[in-house]
């Protein structure tokens, strides 16, 4: 079986699992949706920045929520269902199986983001006027891929741990804060800026804001630099993720601790 077949098979199976029981979209989407609603109440007396920060931030958080929980539970559900031994016993490399699942979570994350945008537009009457739809779409898709690659990095840690659910809960807010999803990262302490700038989503959301509002100044590097930073960080995440998976997979095989939960 080629890597591509493994990837596609895993992608398809993951989507089928989701559509067999779509209620699981609620835990993934509820936090970003509520945060967006809270932000809209706080922004009610502020004009101009609402769509840029609250709505786009909510959409980005929706994508991250889905990717994080999808990655966190990609292996935890296998553990609970007793299928993880079979997944690992196949000749296909685990990392390609996880990559297929992460890609499927990314697609569902896009649906999350669009759902948040739609609810906010209809429910709150906040219209997102995009200055350059093509550049916006490119930035959105690259941000989604970047989030997905970050999910692969974290999933390697979840392979080693029985506490994936605790780790996913712990990782949701730090990315929301560090990436400046709903506020400029300039507000954060100066020492945290390198961490923020090492995250692909920070650059991705900035690029989306550039594409939405031509008067936006943001990080100050411009759309194309932002997009390049998303691309580079995604490649780095994938390289780290694949390497970590090799190490983690070998460790759980050697220690025989994969099924522990």
């Amino acid at each position, binding site marked *: 079986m080629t890597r591509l077949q493994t990837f596609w098979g895993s992608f398809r199976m993951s989507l089928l699992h989701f559509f067999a029981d779509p209620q699981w979209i609620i*835990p993934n989407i509820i*936090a970003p949706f509520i945060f967006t609603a*809270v932000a809209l109440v706080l922004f009610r007396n502020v004009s101009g920045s609402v769509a840029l920060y609250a709505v786009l931030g909510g959409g980005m958080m929706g994508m991250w929520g889905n990717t994080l929980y999808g990655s966190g539970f990609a292996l935890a559900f296998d553990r609970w269902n007793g299928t993880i031994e079979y997944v690992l016993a196949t000749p296909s490399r685990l990392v390609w199986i996880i990559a297929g699942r992460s890609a499927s979570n990314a697609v569902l994350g896009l649906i999350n983001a669009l759902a948040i945008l739609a609810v906010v537009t209809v429910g709150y009457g906040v219209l997102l006027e995009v200055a350059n739809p093509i550049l916006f779409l490119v930035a959105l898709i690259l941000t989604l891929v970047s989030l997905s690659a970050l999910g692969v990095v974290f999933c390697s840690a979840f392979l080693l741990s029985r506490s994936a659910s*605790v780790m996913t809960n712990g990782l949701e*807010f730090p990315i*929301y*804060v560090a990436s400046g999803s*709903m506020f*400029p990262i300039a507000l954060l302490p100066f020492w945290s800026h390198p961490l923020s700038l090492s995250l692909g989503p920070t650059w991705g959301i900035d690029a989306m804001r550039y594409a939405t509002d031509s008067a936006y100044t943001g990080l100050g590097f411009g759309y194309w630099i932002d997009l390049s930073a998303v691309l580079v960080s995604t490649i780095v995440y994938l390289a780290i993720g694949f390497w970590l998976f090799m190490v983690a997979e070998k460790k759980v095989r050697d220690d025989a601790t994969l099924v522990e939960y």
Partner: protein
Amino acid sequence: MAIVLGDWPPFRIFWSSAKFAFKALFSWLRPEMWLMQLFTLPLFQMAFFVYLSRFVNPGAAGVAFIAVGNALQVASFSSIFAVCNITSEEKWQGTLTPLIATPASRFPLFVGRAMFQILNSMATIVVGFVYASFVFGVDMSGTDFVALAVVILITSLAMTGFGLMLGSVGLYLRTAMIIANIFLFIGLLVCGVNFPVTALPTWLQPLSYAIPMTYGTIAARAAIQGSSIAELSPLILQEIGAGAGSLVVGYLLFLGFEALARRRGTFEEF
């Protein structure tokens, strides 16, 4: 004849259930992971809303309002999410059916299961208030700490009662995870955590006052401004009422859903 508390069946069931839940939790959750959750969750949740508030309205008053509200609300991870999932976790582990087959009273059994989460909630709130003061600059110099301690205790107990009520619904559902997630975060919107309840549409406000957290956030802010227990007693009594009401409704729901699940044979469905 003197009655020894340890021999009183409801207490014995409660205590053994509490001990068992504690041991079961730390059989899979490493203490360092628990500590990581205890110290990082309040910090990042508070940071998110505090920075959002600083961006929208740089005034210090708004920051203090939000920091205090979130310091209290972050306990929902223990008192709502973890407690609501108690019945579902028994399903996942395959232990719900034998548990239901015992003649033990359900009330002390499941309240005992939630006991550790009450302590966990209190610890989380205390950590949240430490961050509020030392990281986010909330002025706590005029705080009545006895009143604040009582508010923390009552909020933890009352919210756990609310979590148990949601968990009763989870007994019949395939999983309580969905409602646990909804009610974990809905407090941010409806319980006066980030803005006053009066900013909500009128039709939504009754929901706010049905959740004990709403009284807790108002009482905590008042305690930080120096209100004593005597001054806070009407609010605290309302919070106790909301928590006790949740617990009673939860128990009745549990008995009803237990009967329904027995009749339909859905105990093991998940």
